[in-house]
């Protein structure tokens, strides 16, 4: 955006940054609908343990699209991205360590507790 005649403060400082044209929003929307169909189709194909990772991958692509364009993280100040990444880092640490912990136990100690647990 070009600097307006009025120096400081900028009256339209609401959006000092760029703004997405409507076409982009519609394109993202179409992509989200397509990916929703993709995740349904992918769940019909039996790929064993891969299925959940494919589902999570498609969901993550959708989440990133929403984040970058609808939530305009693309044009956001870096500090907001740092806040988001900090939260996500701790989510991964949290779930990762808990899964490491739960995988470390001998589930056969309890009869019939986890009959089909993948080892």
């Amino acid at each position, binding site marked *: 955006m070009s600097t307006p005649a009025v120096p400081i403060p900028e009256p339209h400082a609401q959006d000092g940054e760029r703004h997405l044209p409507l076409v982009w929003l519609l394109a993202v929307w179409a992509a989200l*609908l397509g990916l929703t169909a993709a995740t349904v189709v992918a*769940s019909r194909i039996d790929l064993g343990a891969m299925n959940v990772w494919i589902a999570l991958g498609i969901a993550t692509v959708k989440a990133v699209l929403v984040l970058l364009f*609808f939530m305009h993280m693309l044009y956001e100040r870096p500090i907001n991205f740092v*806040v988001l990444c900090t*939260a996500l880092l701790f*989510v991964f640490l949290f779930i990762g360590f808990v899964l490491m912990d*739960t995988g470390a136990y001998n*589930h056969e100690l309890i009869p019939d507790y986890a009959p089909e647990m*993948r080892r």
Partner: protein
Amino acid sequence: MQATSETDRPSGEHRLPFLAHQFDTPRQQFQTGKLGMWLFLATEILMFSGLFCVYAVYRHNHPEVFVRAAQFLNWKLGALNTLVLICSSLTMAWAVHCAHCNQQRGLQAMLGLTVFLGLCFMGVKGIEYHDKWKHHLLPGVNFKPELGHAGADAQAGTPAPQAKQAGTPALQPEKKSDAWTGPEPGKPPAGLAAFQPQDSAGEPAKLPGYTHIFFGIYFVMTGLHGLHVLAGLGVIIWILRRARRGEFSSAYYAPVDLVGLYWHFVDIIWIYLFPLLYLVR
């Protein structure tokens, strides 16, 4: 970039009406609000991560429960709700776009449309919850699928010889049911009877042990998400009323933008919940 003479004035002797006293410029005020919103969303992510952690541990230990129990959810309704929520995210982003371009009518229309779609989402959710309630697919001690099963058969008027024996040991740990392939695609299930699989000997297969915990996870995750949708609807209605009063313009639309961030976050949570709960294979 059109500006009214009122908002053109720099801060100082003549403060902008929407500029809080602790801020120097509208830009500073907007950026501060955004940072606050992102910090709030970070706490929201961490709160939901607790539930996703429960999900991960439970699915890790009991994959058979998830494969089986997810069949009881109606994935078509889940997919419908996904579409509804994605559309509502578009209309919300569109509303912010309208506010940015000073299109008052568009702003109000898009906010109204977002509220409508949010209500549609809750309506479908209500249908799903009612269905689970009817079939006693409830968490904890209220998980009594045998009751729902018998009730569904009584309603349909079809005899259900296996209902009793299938239902009673439902909470017992079962051996293995390789024969179970899920309900036939394309055929809408008639009550729980359609879900009742048979093993090779013609005996009905039982639900795996701990199946009720899946429904505990389902209700807590979708319930917390539903509460977020309701909260989002509340604030969007508030924003819509303010928009009707003409409080927003291209010079000031921070509340629209921040509420939009929240609404998109709620959409992202559902984007993960849909495949994780409805599309388990």
